[in-house]
């Protein structure tokens, strides 16, 4: 088996809870050693998929393969994968050391070895010295580290993480993100990480699988998904997106024209576009230039009025009401690399972006 071979393969997994379809014929391969994020809104089936891998949920249809072995019918306690739960799920009646030792004790690992492995893991998660504490005596961040150590001590083939940072505050979450990445690098274990936080997915993952309604919407590296979203859903779920709904007015080279509520926009043509076809033009806010005079170098040019100026320190976010009958309210980001005069609300501005930055998405 090659280094990048699939360690987990979900083959046509369907899971229904009564009338609710949580997973809809989902197929996905997870490669050895990668940090894969399942990203989607709540109820999109990402946690169900994770639990299917752990054996805590059995699929209605479909098979789960672990290192090419069909484990669909294996009970959870026989699967060589481990999970970090959203609310940690530490054993409240056991000390930190006994929590971590639990899986080893079940496997009848000799006492001396258990002590050594518990010590190593506590060091890995920077919690040495907390052996005798009870879960109640830990903060959220500490409890999460112990939950991580408890799962990793068994050296699982895959570590499953179910929104493990969801209940931590922002600062702690950022710290733990960095730490998870470094632990992933050091151990080389395959991580499957469930989150609804796009920032988390972008920061940590080698690969992101965007899910919605129990299906894969898009599967790719964070940059691919950010720069080339394949749908309005993916574009909006990852990063911010300014959207214009319209129709193809002319397909030419090197650019095609889109008419959206009286505005003329330009984008790069791609094969298969036909005049009259409905289309969504998607622009990232940081690709838009905002200025007091029109920029002749940019082929998309709009006029508008600043509605809100939001100062963010390193950047300014403007909400601009575009002129015209159906002119949308768009958000534009301006980096403050130099001291620029800010456009105050009410001022008339010109927006511009290059046709390369117009992403044409199916409606």
């Amino acid at each position, binding site marked *: 088996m090659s280094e990048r071979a699939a360690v987990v393969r979900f083959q046509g997994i369907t899971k229904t809870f009564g009338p609710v379809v949580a997973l809809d014929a989902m197929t996905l391969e997870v490669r050895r050693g990668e940090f894969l994020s399942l990203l989607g809104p709540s109820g999109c089936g990402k946690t169900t998929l994770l639990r299917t891998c*752990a054996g805590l949920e059995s699929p209605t249809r479909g098979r789960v393969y672990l290192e090419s072995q069909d484990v669909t019918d294996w009970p959870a306690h026989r699967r060589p994968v*481990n*999970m970090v739960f959203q609310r940690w799920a*530490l*054993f*409240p009646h056991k000390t930190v050391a006994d929590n971590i030792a639990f899986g080893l004790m079940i496997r009848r690992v000799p006492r001396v070895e258990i002590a050594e492995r518990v010590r190593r893991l506590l060091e890995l998660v920077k919690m040495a010295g907390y052996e005798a504490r009870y879960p109640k005596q830990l903060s959220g961040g500490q409890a999460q580290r112990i939950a991580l150590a408890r799962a990793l001590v068994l050296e699982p083939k895959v570590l499953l993480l179910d929104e493990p940072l969801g209940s931590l505050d922002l600062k702690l979450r950022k710290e733990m993100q960095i730490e998870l990445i470094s632990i992933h690098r050091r151990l080389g274990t395959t991580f499957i990480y469930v989150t609804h936080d796009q920032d988390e997915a972008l920061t940590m993952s080698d690969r992101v699988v965007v899910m919605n309604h129990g299906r894969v919407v898009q599967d790719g590296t964070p940059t691919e998904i950010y720069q080339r979203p394949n749908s309005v859903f993916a574009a909006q779920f990852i990063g911010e997106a300014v959207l214009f709904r319209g129709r193809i007015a002319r397909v030419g080279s090197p650019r095609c024209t889109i008419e959206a509520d009286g505005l003329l926009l330009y984008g790069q043509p791609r094969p298969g576009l036909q005049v009259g076809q409905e289309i969504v033009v998607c622009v990232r806010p940081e690709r838009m230039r905002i200025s007091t005079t029109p920029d002749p170098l940019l082929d998309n040019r709009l006029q508008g009025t600043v509605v809100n100026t939001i100062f963010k320190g390193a950047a300014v976010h403007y909400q601009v009401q575009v002129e015209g009958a159906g002119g949308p309210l768009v958000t534009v980001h301006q980096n403050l690399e130099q001291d620029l005069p800010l456009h105050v609300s009410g001022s008339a501005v010109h927006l511009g972006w290059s046709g390369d930055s117009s992403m044409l998405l199916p409606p």
Partner: protein
Amino acid sequence: MLGRLLARRRLSPLVRLGPLTLYMLIFFVIPVGTFLLYSFWTVREWDVVRVWNLGNYREVFTSPVYPRLIMRSLAVGAVTAILSVVVVYPLAYTLVFRLERYRDLILFLLTISLFSNYVVRIYAWRSILSANGLVNYLLMGLRLADGPRSYLIHTPWAVVVVLLNVYIPFATLPIFSALLNIERDVLDAASDLGANPVRTFWQVTLPLSMPGVMAAFSFIFLLSAGDFVTPELVGGINGMMIGNAVATQFGMVSNWPLGAAMVFSTILVIVLALAAWLVGQRGLRLLRV
């Protein structure tokens, strides 16, 4: 004014728990304390005389009857409590983990038995267990016995059976709520970490439900050991318990000091037994280390 008083930080916890303290004082400390005083007094010609002495205790512990009644009460209490926990645990477990859908209905049916008076239920059992009652009828009908079995009633076992039946709802609720409070994720974590269902039960579910088990045990033990209606009605001579003797002293004989001494002797025995158990536990733990 009360608000300002409560807002002051330096109030002792005793005062901050004011309402509870008051409640305990009025309904527990004062009545029990009064009887503790009584137990050191004596009776002359149906009048309580406040002469301090240990005569009542001497009478309780040197009598051929009372120590046996005390021990029997504790034994009946312990057996009933153990049996009820053993019977109720699987029921509560099933309700919480297997029959979620019928949970409320079954709990309701269980508590409905509390709607009927306890004495009525005891009488019902009396007729079930009596010589021409249901059990004997079935035994003879199935040819398992050739005549009515007299051991069914007027024995300590009859007392245990009836107490078990009467008090089972009190044992179900604490165990049920202890099990209900266990996070499902914790059980999932145990199986995720490799524990099969049996080990998950022994390592996680049972220890986490122990507070409920202890509560159920204590309820049933105290209620049963102190009961005097059940032994009166189905216990017969051999099923008499200390409660009956106490009731007699407070009622017919009107010797409150002796009755009070019986109560505190029983409490003393329980406290000593508990202390011995705790010391034993401590000893075991020290041995293990």
